[in-house]
Every structure is written in C-alpha cells, then in structure tokens.
C-alpha cells in the first residue's frame, strides 16, 4: 500500500540551518551599514516619579555623540499601538518603572553612546511606588493606571456556583503564587533602521511580529505604512519576549534614523534586556473545587490576578487566555472565574510561551492532587473522571470537537512513565533522597481565539521559478521553532515539488499582507493554511498541464514528490521539472497568493460564555523527581510529555518543541528565580538568573498524538506553547509525592522546601 503523503509527516531535515552551523547566518548585531550610528537608551533609575528635568548638556559634549532625543522630538504619537495604547516610547513627565526609556543617545559607536547615556542627568520627584498587586487594588494606594490600577478584568459565569458548592460532598481550596519568568532568548533584542531616499524607512531586526513593528513605526514617525518596510533578520529565540516589546526598540531606532538621516543600530546589552523587556507575569490564584464523593467535580471557583507591571501592553489578552483555561481541562457544570490584570511600578509583563496558562495550571493541577488525596481517589483516576472529552463543555461552555485525543495522550504518558508504580512506591525512611512522581494535564486553545479574532488571518505568496525552485513568503516568523521547514513541507506536498526545491524567504512586510503575530502556536495552522491555499491554486494549473500532456481532458493527477501520474495509467510518469518547463513555455501563471482566516469565535463579556477558540490541543506530563531532603535540592530524573496536536507535519521538529518547552518549564519550576527589591531587578544577568544547563537535563520522552482538526493543514492544530504548560506542575506534584511537602509557590526553591520541612 502506497502512503498517501510524500513529505508531510516526515522528519525531513530543516532547510534553514546550514547557514547557522557555518556561522554565516546573520543576526541583527551582525549587520553593518555605511555611516551607521549607534543608539543607547537612557532609562529611569527609579520605580515611580515625576520627571523634573532632563539635563543632556554634559552628555552632548562627549566626543562622538551626535545627538540626544527625548519625547518632545517625536514627530508622531508617543505610544506603540497595543490594545490599551498606554506604553509611551519615551517617558514624558513621569516614569512608572525602573528601566523605563526616557531619552535616546545616538553616537558614532556603541561605547560612546553608552558612556553618554550615563551622563544624561535626570532629576525626579520620587513618588511612592506600588509594588504589590493586593496593595495596588486597595482604595488607598497610589493610582498609576485609571482610577483603580486594574488594566483589565474578566468574569466567566457558568451554571450556578452557589448551588454547585452546596451539592459538593468535599470542598478544597487554596492559594497559589508564581514568580516572573525571563525569556532568556540567547540573542538580545535589537534593531537597525535605515532611512530611504523617499523619506521612508526600512527596519531590520530580531522580532516575532513584523506587522506590530510596522504599526509602531508609523505611529512614532507619523508616516504612511507604504513608506515603511520591516524585515525580520535571523532571530535568536523569542518565546513571547519578542512579541510586543520589539515595537519599542524599533520605534526608538526608527526615530534616531529619521532624525539623523543615518542608519542607526540599537542592540541591547543583556542587562538592559533584563531590565527593560517583558517578562512572564507573576500570578496569584485563589482556587476552590467542590466534588461529589465519586470524584465528579461539580463546582469550581477561581480568582486569578496577574501582576501586569507599569503598562498594559499584552496583559489583557494574556489574562484572557489564562482566564478561559483557569479551572483546568475539566468538564465542570458550575464555574465562576474572576480575573484581574493589575498595574504596579515594575517592569511591564507580556507574552511568554504559555501566555497566562502555566500560572493557572500550577493552581488547578496542584489543587486536583489535593482533592484526590481528600477523596482518597488516585490523582490519575480523578483526572480521568473529570477531563474534557469530545462533546463535553469547557468553562466558557465551548463544546469540544472530536479533534480530542486527550484520553490517548494521558494513557500513553502514564504507561511510558510508569507513573502509578512510582506514585505508590514508599520511600525508605532512612534515605535522604526521596523519589516521587507527579502528573499534570492541560488543554490549550489554539490561535488567538475570541480575544484576538480580528487579527487572526494570514497571507502567503508562492511562486515557482523557471528552474522549478519555489519561493514562498509568509507573514509568520522563523524563531528557531522550524516554521519555515513546516511551510516548505506543506508547499512541497501540495505542489508535488521536491522538498529541497522550496525556500521560504525572510519575512518582510512588503511581501505579504498583515498576517498577525507569530504567537499562540498559530503559525502552522494559519500560515500553513495560507500556503496551502496558494499552493492549491498553482497545483490546479499544473494539473491541467499534466492532463494535457497525458492527452486527457479531466481526471485526478497524483504526485510521488517528483513526478506526476494519473490513476488510469500509474506506470507512466512525467517529471515535475518537465511539467514546469512546459508551463513556462505556455505562459501559465505559476504564482499565487493565499489567504486564511480562522474559524469564527465569540465571547460574551458579561458572562464569559462562548466559543473561545476554534480548536484545542491536549497535553499530559509526568515528572519523576529525586529530592534531597537535607539540602532541598530537586533533581528531575525523567519527564514524559504527551501532546495531541492534530498532525505532526514534521515529527522530529515536534519532539524538539516538546523537549525545549519541557526544559523551560523545568527552569520555571526549579531554578529560574527573578528577585526584585523596590521594583528593581537584583539579578539581571545569566549569572544571577539561572536557566537550566546541560547538567540539569533529565531523560525526556516526548509523545505525539494525532487527533486531526478538520480545518488544520493536514489536520494540524499547533504545538509551540503546550509543552510549557504542564511540566512545572508535574514536577511540583512529584515533589509532594516524594516528600509530603506541598509547595504553593513557583519556583520551588530549596529554601522553600527546607522551610516546609522544618514546619513539619
């Protein structure tokens, strides 16, 4: 039996990495332009205050300084467009966080620019900073956003919450907290702007969302969109950290280039990147479950608060995603969720892989284990009783479709990890090393959902060249995740062109229509479908030519990846290149644009009810840990992480996404601990903020389940974020199983564990 796909579903090698192993790939700091100047940002050194004066005279005298600009030099609007439009490019009369940009220095080299930035003197009238979310929400606290410091709030009401808890035999409730997480992409943020002869500007840089950057530049310079070109350079990781804030960097560098009429480079030092760029929101979650004796959860109540930092940026939609998923992947008839994103005088938080879900998952997946213990039902059984399945309803009353391989994901993960065996194994009393197993499960709404539906579209341009090679432009960006490879596979499959012939070009806003951001695990689905659309149009024309060559007027044309044939005569084949040559001679258009918009979604702001997302992925993770109860040090031995993603276009890339996400989640659980004092980050470096090294890596078994989504390209849903959601909580649950210490804070530091031990 011949398989019906040639390249989709195969682990073909990535087609964008030869230049990376050779060292020839160019990241933003690797570019130079003639006469290029260098920028540096002058930042606030206090957390909250009024700007009394900005003294640039000493800095300006420094040899090599070209100029210094402040908010008053901005020709356009002083904010970058993002939901509430509250984040100014440069502070005007007040600063709201330590590290907020106030002025920009431009000089002949970076050292001079940096030196000059230190010599810009700002006089402040310091104001009381609001550093704590609970204080921020009190009546008597200083107000830094609106009249209540609340950046956004949501409510989800399903069924009757009071009735639900009345019916419950057992009620559990608790409070959970999570800390910041820093993206720690290896390439810091940076941009170069190059003025164009027509008065326009081209901006190059490391980014996830060229179209956000496009909007930002139009805003700050007050020029038309068709004078702006944004090109994404090879990007050294993003993870959400290059979603919104590159708009700030781009705005700054565009302003400098526009005002000096010279190319300008602005690349952050690691320390600046720590202080100035976005983070994962710290979360505070009060959660309560009510269940029947048989384990059926009948009521769930959540109060979820995110610490948004000084400006809203993406907080409203990070909060939205977290809210929609806050009671966990369970079918619960009575739900009440109230959520708030709160303004504080700290670094603004934004997108980070998982987008508001890892925090909420830590709460609900910890509480499920607590409930299981109280009910004397195994944590696995309790999840099986309540978890979402086809046609069950989420908290927003959204009906789960039959693209739901949740059950299979869970059973595979349980089997491969030997979870039940380790869970029930008693640790020897004398041993100081305790072993334990932990489980966590989640669902994840793919794409922007009802919270971002108006920008949930994607375009693509595809062209077969004379020699048969294919070029494709998409609006989503390659960040290392492998989207160019996946797109090439989809195009190759549909066109019948050999995979090696396909090349995806570097994203450029002049090549494709605004395709929204590269976030929310949406690229395979959205750009994949847009390319599918374009490729199908071209393939239709190719098929017509093939039939002509076979002297047929109609019939179905097949491809084996390099040759075409028809069912009535499968032995006779015509090579792809031959057909392309014929098409060129016959003046057939071998190019097309593709377009895709997400399925319709809705959300009622009063009740929070509606179809929040068009499709969901499902995941389960088991962690096996060893805890040294003398030192509180946790070693993760093994992680099995399973994900129903619809279809793995490239299984090896999917494994890589799972492995990478698992380790980020492991860092979130154990080692990554940002420390702030008075709103100032005390450990703004890789020496102080510790991401996992090669020594911290457990055995990882990735599990992929394919329960196809009818609208996805070849059934694919999405994967990027799912692996980041459950592992941290699986680790926390495993630590409890090993030691009996229930940790209600992430990260679980040895300090916390020994504290818990001493309390016992």
């Amino acid at each position, binding site marked *: 039996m011949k398989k019906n796909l040639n390249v989709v579903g195969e682990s073909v090698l990535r087609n964008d990495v030869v230049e990376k192993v050779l060292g020839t790939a160019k990241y933003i700091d690797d570019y130079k332009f003639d006469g290029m100047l260098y920028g540096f940002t002058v930042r606030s050194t206090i957390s909250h205050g009024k700007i009394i004066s900005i003294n640039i005279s000493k800095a300006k005298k*420094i040899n090599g300084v070209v100029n210094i600009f402040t908010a008053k030099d901005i020709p356009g609007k002083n904010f970058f467009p993002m939901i509430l439009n509250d984040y100014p490019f440069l502070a005007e009369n007040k600063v709201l966080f330590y590290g907020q940009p106030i002025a920009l220095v431009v000089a002949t080299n970076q050292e*001079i620019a940096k030196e000059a930035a230190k010599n810009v003197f700002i006089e402040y009238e310091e104001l009381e900073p609001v550093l704590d979310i609970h204080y921020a929400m009190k009546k008597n606290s200083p107000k830094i956003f609106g009249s209540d410091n609340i950046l956004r709030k949501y409510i989800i009401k399903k069924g009757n919450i009071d009735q639900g808890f009345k019916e419950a035999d057992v009620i559990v409730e608790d409070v959970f907290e999570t800390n910041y997480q820093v993206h720690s992409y290896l390439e810091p943020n940076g941009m170069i702007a190059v003025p164009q002869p027509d008065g326009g500007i081209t901006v190059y840089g490391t980014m996830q969302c060229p179209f956000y950057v496009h909007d930002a530049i139009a805003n700050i310079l007050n020029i038309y969109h068709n004078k702006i070109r944004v090109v994404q350079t090879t990007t050294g990781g993003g993870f959400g950290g290059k979603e919104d804030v590159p708009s700030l960097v781009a705005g700054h560098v565009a302003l400098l280039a526009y005002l000096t009429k010279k190319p300008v480079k602005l690349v952050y030092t690691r320390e600046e990147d720590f202080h100035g760029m976005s983070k994962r929101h710290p979360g505070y979650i009060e959660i309560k479950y009510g269940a029947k004796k048989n384990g059926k959860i009948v009521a769930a109540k959540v109060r979820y608060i995110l610490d948004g930092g000084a400006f809203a940026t993406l907080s409203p939609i990070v909060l939205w995603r977290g809210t929609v998923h806050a009671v966990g992947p369970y079918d619960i008839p009575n739900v009440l969720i109230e959520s708030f994103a709160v303004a504080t005088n700290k670094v603004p938080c934004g997108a980070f892989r998982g987008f508001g879900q890892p925090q909420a998952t830590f709460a609900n997946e910890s509480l499920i284990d607590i409930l299981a213990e109280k009910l004397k039902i195994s944590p696995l059984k309790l999840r099986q009783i309540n978890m979402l399945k086809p046609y069950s309803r989420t908290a927003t009353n959204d009906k789960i479709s039959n693209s739901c391989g949740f059950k299979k994901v869970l059973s595979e993960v349980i089997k491969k990890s030997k979870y039940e065996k380790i869970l029930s194994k008693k640790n020897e009393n004398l041993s100081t090393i305790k072993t334990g197993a932990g489980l966590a499960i989640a669902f994840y709404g793919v794409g922007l959902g009802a919270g971002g539906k108006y920008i949930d579209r994607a375009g693509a341009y595809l062209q077969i060249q004379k020699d048969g090679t294919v070029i494709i432009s998409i609006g989503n960006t390659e960040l290392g995740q492998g989207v160019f490879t996946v797109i090439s596979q989809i195009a190759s499959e549909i066109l019948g062109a050999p995979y090696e012939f396909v090349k995806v070009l570097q994203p450029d806003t002049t090549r494709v229509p605004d395709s929204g951001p590269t976030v929310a695990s949406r690229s395979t689905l959205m750009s994949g479908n847009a390319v599918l659309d374009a490729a199908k149009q071209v393939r239709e024309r190719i098929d017509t030519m093939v039939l002509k060559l076979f002297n047929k007027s109609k019939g179905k044309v097949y491809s084996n990846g390099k040759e075409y044939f028809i069912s009535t005569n499968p032995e006779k084949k015509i090579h792809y290149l031959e057909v392309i040559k014929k098409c060129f001679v016959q003046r057939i258009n071998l190019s097309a644009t593709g377009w895709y918009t997400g399925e319709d979604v809705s959300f009622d702001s009063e009740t929070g009810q509606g179809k929040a997302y068009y499709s969901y992925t499902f995941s389960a993770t088991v962690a096996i840990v060893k805890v040294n109860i003398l030192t509180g040090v946790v070693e993760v031995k093994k992680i099995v992480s399973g994900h129903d993603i619809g279809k793995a276009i490239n299984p090896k890339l999917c494994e890589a996404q799972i492995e990478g996400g698992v380790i980020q989640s492991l860092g979130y659980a154990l080692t990554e601990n940002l420390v702030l004092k008075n709103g100032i980050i005390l450990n703004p470096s890789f020496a102080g903020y510790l991401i996992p090294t090669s020594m911290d890596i457990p055995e990882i078994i990735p599990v992929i389940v394919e329960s196809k989504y009818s609208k996805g390209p070849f059934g694919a849903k999405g994967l990027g974020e799912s692996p980041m959601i459950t592992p941290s909580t699986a680790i926390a649950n495993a630590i409890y199983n090993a030691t009996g210490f229930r940790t209600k804070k992430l990260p679980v530091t040895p300090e916390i564990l020994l504290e818990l031990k001493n309390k016992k």
Partner: protein
Amino acid sequence: MIYYPEYLQPKTLEELFKELPKNKKIYYLAGGTDLLNYLRDELVDKKNSCFVDLSKIKELVFINETNKNIEIGSMVSFNILQENNLVKKHFPAITSMCKTFSTPIISNRATIGGNIANASPSGDSLPVLYTLNTKIEIKNFSQTRIEDIDKIFVGPKKTNFKNGDLITKLIIPKQVLQKGFSIIGIFKKVGGRKSHIISKASIAISAISKSDYIKKINVAVGAVAPTVLKINTISEILNNKKLNKKLVKDSVEEIKKVISPIDDFRSTANYRKEVVSSLFLESISELFKFNFYD
C-alpha cells in the same frame, strides 16, 4: 572620554617589578574571568589603574614537589590543576573542587591565584585551601613574604594586600602518612542549579584517616560568613578519634556557632545555615562511607 586602564605585559617577574607604576592601582590580569567583568561593569577606576597581564610570565605556571610541600604557581588554571597527578595524590579535596568549579570553558582559563586574589567568600578554591593549611607566597618589588591563607582575607572581596602585592605561588604541606592511613578530601557546594553557579554555601574537608579513625581533620566553609572560615573546633573534636554519630552531631553544632550567613538574591541566611550543616553531613558520610544523617 572612553578610557582603558594602563596595560603592561611583562615576560618575567623581574621585568614586572621593574615596570610596575607606583602611582596607580594595580590589577593583575590572570585568567581574566572575573577581572574583565569588573572592567566591563565599570567597577574599576580606569583612569587611575594599571592592568598587569600575567599571561606571558612562564615562571608562574608550575606544579612542583619539594621535600615537604607541593608548590603550585599562581597562574595554574583549574583544568590543569584538576588533571595533575601530584594534586590528585596529595590533595583529593582540590581535585574534588576542580570537578565542580564553574564551567569547563571558564576553568580552562581561570587561575588558582586569581580565585584567591578575588577574595570572594564563595570562591570555590578557598575552603579547600584552608583545610590544607596552604601558605601563599606574595611578592612586591624586592620583597617576598609568605602568609597563611586564612590570614589574608579581611572581608568579602577584601584582602590585606598592599597595592602591587602579587600572589606568586601556593605552598601546600604534604602529609606524612603512617602505615594504613590515607589522605581523603572532598568539596561540596550547593547553588541554584546543578552546575555553573556561585555557591549559596560550600564546604571542604581534608583528613588523614584509617577506616573510621581520624588522625587529623580540617573543615572549612564558604559563603556563610564575610570570609571563608576554617572551623578549628571541629578538628579539636574529631582529631585522634573514632568517628561516631555523637561526634558528628557536636561538629555540626560548631559550624552553627561560627557562621554568620546573610540574605541576598541567591538565598536566605536560614537556608545557608541549615544547608551548610547538611553539606557537612553528606560529606562526612561520603568520605567515611557511613550514614551520619539522623
């Protein structure tokens, strides 16, 4: 406007002290793995400083055996130290420490002299050198003096060195072993992840023993006081004794008595206090292959 400090690159010690400026603060550039960070972070008064690069001075790179001592040149890097057979034979605690020192790409360059001169209470080599009663040879112009390692530190990142003082070598006494006795040693630390960390707390133990009989033992702790501490009272408790749980417990009490850890972004005083005792128990248990935990 953008300054670099003055820079010298002498080829011999003689040349070094001939050229050394008297009106500038002297920084010796050894491996550079700490000092170049201080320079980058502007912790150095560039205008009034002179960096003396030691990388060409071959006479500072050696590991020699004399009658009574092993002598280690200050410019010996940690990876060389780790592989050295004399060190392995005489000072197992040093080898143990080298295995967890920073990262391999740093230990290729970081030097033992640099780690001492940096004077960090969490410097990994220091507790080990304390347990070995290391002496430090220091030269400054025509003068040479020898000091006990535990006498040179006066606070976090502070030594009693005068401007221009250069650590030239470490002198570590060899132990005379009676029949049946052997030298054992260990270094342990705990940090925010498994490796590539600055210690939250550390411990070194060097001993001469025969099975569970201790002839002589030295214990030193790091990152739990303004300087590394050698805990002589533990030596008093354990020297010439057969090890037992009671003695180990008494030793732990001695650690708790002398340390004065602090809260910082890496850890808490409470944790440091507790974990350094845990590290002692783990180390003793590992060295003597017996469980002394409870």
